[in-house]
């Protein structure tokens, strides 16, 4: 009988540990070294190059020190963690950049006049986007009113009634196809549809809503279907066992259990379409005046306002561009407020906890 040695060699339970300060020190050292390398390589202090070099230096230093002191497994763990952190920071760059640009450029015209005046009879300075803000709220609101019932009912059919039958397979397929429809096609569809119904050249806010619904419905269907499937079957069975009919089980047990997720899904779908420009340009058109009638005459929306101000400035270009940036900032803020409201509602309806 020979003694069996452990497959991984070491019999000890302890391993070296790097001191806690290692990572901060490594970051600081890598930053200095990366900057120096960047200056050496390009001759100037290029910030992007410096960060790239610093990150590489940091990866290598942490890898070597951890491998020597703590062992290969810990080194692999640190390497993966560092790469993920790097990818996360990289993904934050565009977000930070967009927010910074929109705020710094948009604040110039982010004033009372911007929210109280339209562009009616405005040439050059002054004016505002109240017509576009109202238009965006009307058009997107109407699109939500159209899409949510259709999308939610479709999702209920897919998840509760037509589980894996032919019709639901066909619906799922076409919903997937619809997800890939380019937004301009949705705009042309709405334009052509209203052209057939009301005569050629008709443009209205409602037409824009139809175009947005085409884009929104598949998103609502997919997210609601997933959420309904997440509701445990035990809850449905519990309700059936109490003699609750299927439709009441869906309305009073399944949907309330999934409601917070459904609301988030709807908010995400709204955020997805609120910034659409191309279909609204075609279907809702553009105008300088406030239009409170969803069903007749062109209606301005924020994305179209931004596009129009930027692409067709008058003689005083900067004035138009300032308005465009303010419009972009407003749009970002609207989406952000929507998200916050959605979260609040979702929290309000979430399954209650407490002893």
């Amino acid at each position, binding site marked *: 009988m020979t003694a069996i040695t452990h497959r991984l060699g070491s019999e000890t339970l302890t391993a070296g540990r790097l001191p806690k300060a290692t990572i901060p020190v490594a970051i600081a050292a890598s930053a200095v070294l990366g900057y120096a390398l960047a200056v050496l390589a390009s001759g100037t202090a290029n910030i992007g190059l410096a960060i790239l070099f610093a990150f590489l230096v940091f990866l290598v230093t942490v890898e070597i020190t951890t491998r020597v002191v703590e062992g290969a497994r810990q080194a692999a763990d640190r390497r993966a963690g560092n790469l993920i952190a790097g990818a996360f920071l990289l993904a934050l760059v565009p977000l930070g950049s967009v927010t910074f640009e929109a705020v710094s450029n948009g604040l110039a015209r982010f004033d009372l006049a911007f929210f109280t005046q339209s562009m009616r009879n405005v040439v050059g300075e002054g004016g505002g986007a109240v017509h576009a803000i109202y238009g965006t709220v009307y058009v997107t609101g109407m699109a939500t009113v159209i899409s949510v019932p259709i999308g939610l009912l479709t999702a209920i059919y897919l998840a509760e009634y037509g*589980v894996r039958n032919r019709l639901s397979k066909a619906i799922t397929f076409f919903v997937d196809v619809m997800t890939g429809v380019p937004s301009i096609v949705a705009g042309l569809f709405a334009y052509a549809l209203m052209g057939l119904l009301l005569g050629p050249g008709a443009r209205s806010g409602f037409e824009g809503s139809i175009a947005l619904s085409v884009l929104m419905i598949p998103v609502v269907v997919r997210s609601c279907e997933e959420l309904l499937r997440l509701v*445990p079957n*035990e*809850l*449905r*069975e*519990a*309700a*059936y*066992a*109490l*003699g*609750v*009919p299927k439709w*009441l*089980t869906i309305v*009073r*047990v399944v949907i*309330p*259990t999934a409601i917070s997720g459904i609301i988030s899904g709807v908010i995400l779908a709204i955020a997805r379409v609120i910034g659409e420009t191309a279909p609204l340009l075609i279907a809702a058109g553009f105008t300088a005046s406030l239009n409170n009638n969803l069903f007749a005459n062109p209606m301005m929306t924020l994305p179209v306002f931004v596009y129009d101000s930027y692409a067709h400035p008058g003689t005083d270009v900067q004035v138009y561009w300032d308005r465009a940036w303010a419009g972009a900032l407003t749009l970002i803020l609207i989406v952000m407020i929507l998200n916050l409201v959605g979260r609040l509602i979702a929290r309000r309806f979430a*399954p*209650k*906890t*407490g*002893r």
Partner: protein
Amino acid sequence: MSKRIETTDLNVYYSDFRAVEDVTITIQPRAITAFIGPSGCGKSTFLRTLNRMHEVIPGARVEGEVLLDGENLYGAGVDPVRVRRQVGMVFQRPNPFPTMSIRENVLAGIKLNFSRMPKGEQDDLVERSLRSANLWEEVKNRLGLPGSGLSGGQQQRRCIARAIAMAPAVLLMDEPCSALDPISTLAIEDLMSELKEKYTIVIVTHNMQQAARVSDTTAFFNIAGTGSPGRLIESGPTDKIFSTPDVQATEDYISGRFG
């Protein structure tokens, strides 16, 4: 309000697969009937045919009859929803509704069906059901809370309270104690013994001692092998099944020689 169940030559299918074959059994009112047998022998499937819950699974169907005090559950024009209002069910894992408070959970059968009931009567029903389920003293001060912090045994008793609030004639219990510790199990067994004064109780269990402790009648199910349907091997008074069964397989199973 307790009712007798009789089945004759009951076959249960999942699409083409016959899961349970030719079960003929009489389940006495005001008594506890236990179904025992190895896993996959069709006892839960058979239990679910007694309140038409198996129909929830696509492709499941039944041949034969189930008589509830002489009325065929599978007769023409029988509404499964009405059947389930008479024949309540408690599941293996406690499944309270997470969006509702303890009180709303007990009233779920009434509230979900939009039945109107004066507040006083509701309070009365909640207290009566929770008292029957031996849970009242533990939760009476937090009826308005969701009760997600209740223990597994308390959750299960809450589900029993929910089932008896509907005043069913029969209570089906599908391994109600399999997820519970011995103390909660004891509490639920005591509860079953009290409830049998009013209800017909059918329980599926893998715990032979439990069947011996609480049931009046025991039915043994078995399968010949994987892919063949489950059959009722024998049923009779619990004392007899556990001491001198007629069939060798029953004795082998009970004495632990297989299964």
